[in-house]
C-alpha cells in the first residue's frame, strides 16, 4: 500500500520539522539571554490580558465549530464518493 507509506513518510518528516522548530529551540532558550525570554513572556501575557475570558471562549467555540464543520463535510463527501462509485460499477 504505497499510499499509506507515502503519507506516513510525509507525516513523519513534518513532525520532525515541527518538533525541531518549536520544541528544540525552547531547550536552548533557558541558557540564552534573559531578554528574549522576558520579551516572550511579556508579550504572551499582554495578549491574554487584552482579551477577556468571554472573548477567548467565543473564539474557541468558533474554532471547534469550524473544524467540526469541515470534518462533517469530509464525512459526507466520503459517503458521496462511495455511493457514486457503487453506482458507476453497477
Amino acid at each position, binding site marked *: 500500500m504505497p499510499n499509506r507509506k*507515502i*503519507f506516513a513518510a510525509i507525516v513523519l518528516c513534518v513532525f520532525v520539522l515541527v518538533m525541531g*522548530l518549536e520544541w528544540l529551540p525552547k531547550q536552548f532558550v533557558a541558557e540564552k539571554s534573559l531578554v*528574549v525570554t522576558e520579551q516572550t513572556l511579556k*508579550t504572551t501575557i499582554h495578549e491574554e490580558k487584552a482579551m477577556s475570558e468571554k472573548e477567548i471562549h467565543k473564539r474557541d467555540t468558533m474554532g471547534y465549530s469550524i*473544524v467540526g464543520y*469541515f470534518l462533517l463535510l469530509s464525512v459526507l*463527501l466520503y459517503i*458521496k*464518493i462511495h455511493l457514486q462509485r457503487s453506482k458507476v460499477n453497477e
Partner: protein
Amino acid sequence: MNFKIHNFNILLYTGAIMVVVCLLLLVSGIFLAMHYIPDASKAFESVNTTIMHEVNYGWLWRKIHALGSTFFFLLLYIHLLGMLYFGFYKHGKTKYWYNGMVLYFCCMVIGFTGYVLPMGQMSYWAAQVITSLLEYIPGAGEDIVLWVRGDFSVSGITLLRFYTLHIVVMPLAIALMVLVHTDFVKWYATNKLSWNRKGLHIQKVERFSKHVVTHKEPKPFFSNAVLKPFLACTLFLALFFYCVFFHDYLAFDALNLTPANPSDTPAHIYPEWYFLWMLQLLKSFFFDIGMIKGSYIGMASLVVVNVGLLLMPLLDKNPRRIPAHQRPYFFVWFWTLVVSLIALSILGKLPSSNITLWIGLFFSTILIVLFFILPFLSKKESHAKS
C-alpha cells in the same frame, strides 16, 4: 464493503489544496489590506492594534493569512519533493518543472515581502539582512542593493515597494503562472474553444461521431475525480482551521511583536521557517578556504542548490520516469536531500554553538555535493538497470 478510496494520495492533491490555500490567502489579504497602512511608523500599529483588536474578525484574517502562508510553503515543499521522487520533471513534463520552479521563486518573493510588512523587529532585520546579501553579487552588487531598497537602508520607501510587490505584482504573476502550470490555458483552448458544425460545448463523443449518438444514463455531475480533491481539501481545511484557532504560534514569532528598531539588532535573527535551510547554508561556511572567504562560499552554495533544483531535468541523466523506490541510487540521493534540508532548517533556528556550526557544515557540504554527483549517479544507475 470496501472502505478504501482508490488512489487517495496526498501527493496527487497538493496542487488542488494549494489553490484553495491561495484563495484563502487572497481573501484574507484583501481584508488585511483594507486596514494596513504601508508607512514605516504606522505599519506596526495598523497591524497589531487596528487589525488584531479593533476590526471585527481582524484577528481571524491575520491568523488565516499567516498560517495560510506557512501551510502553503509546507504543501509547496511536499509537492516539490514529491515530484522529485516520482521523476515528474523528466521528458514530457519538463515544462511543468521549470514553470513550477519559477512559481517557487515567485512564492519566495511574495513570502519574504509579506513578512516585512508588519514592521516588527524580526520583519525589519530580516529585510535588512537579506537585502544586504545582494551586495555580494559580483559587479553591480551595491547598486542592486540601492535599487532594491530605494534607500540606503530598509526604510519606508522599501516598505512601500515591498507592499506593491506583495499585493499587486506577485499575485498577478503567480495567478498567471498557476494557470499555465495547471494547463488550464491549454485545456480551455483545446476543449472549450473548438467549433465545428455541431456547435460549442458538445460532448466529445458526439462531436467526433459520424452518427447520431444515443444518450446514455447521465453521469453524476461531480465525478469522483472532482470529489476526491474536494475531500482532500476539506480534510486539509479542518487541520488548517484547527491550527488557526488553537496553534497559531506556529506562524507568529514572539520577537515580531516588538516594533522595528533600526538601531537595535536582536541577538538571534532568523527568517520564516521555509527560508531557514537557506540561512543555514549561508552561515555554514564559517572559515575561509585559501583566498575565498567563507561567506562567499556560503552564497555560492545557495546559488548551486537553487540552480541545481531548477536544472533537475538536465542533471538527472536517467531517462526513465520511475519512482525513487525503483531506483536504488536515486532513493538514497532523495532521502539524503530531504534529511539535509530538514536538518539545515532546524539548525537555522537554533542559536549558534560549536556543535551546530560543525553539523551545519556537514549537512551543507552534503547538500552541495548531492547536486554535483547526481549526473554521475543517475548515469551509473541507468546503465546498471536493463
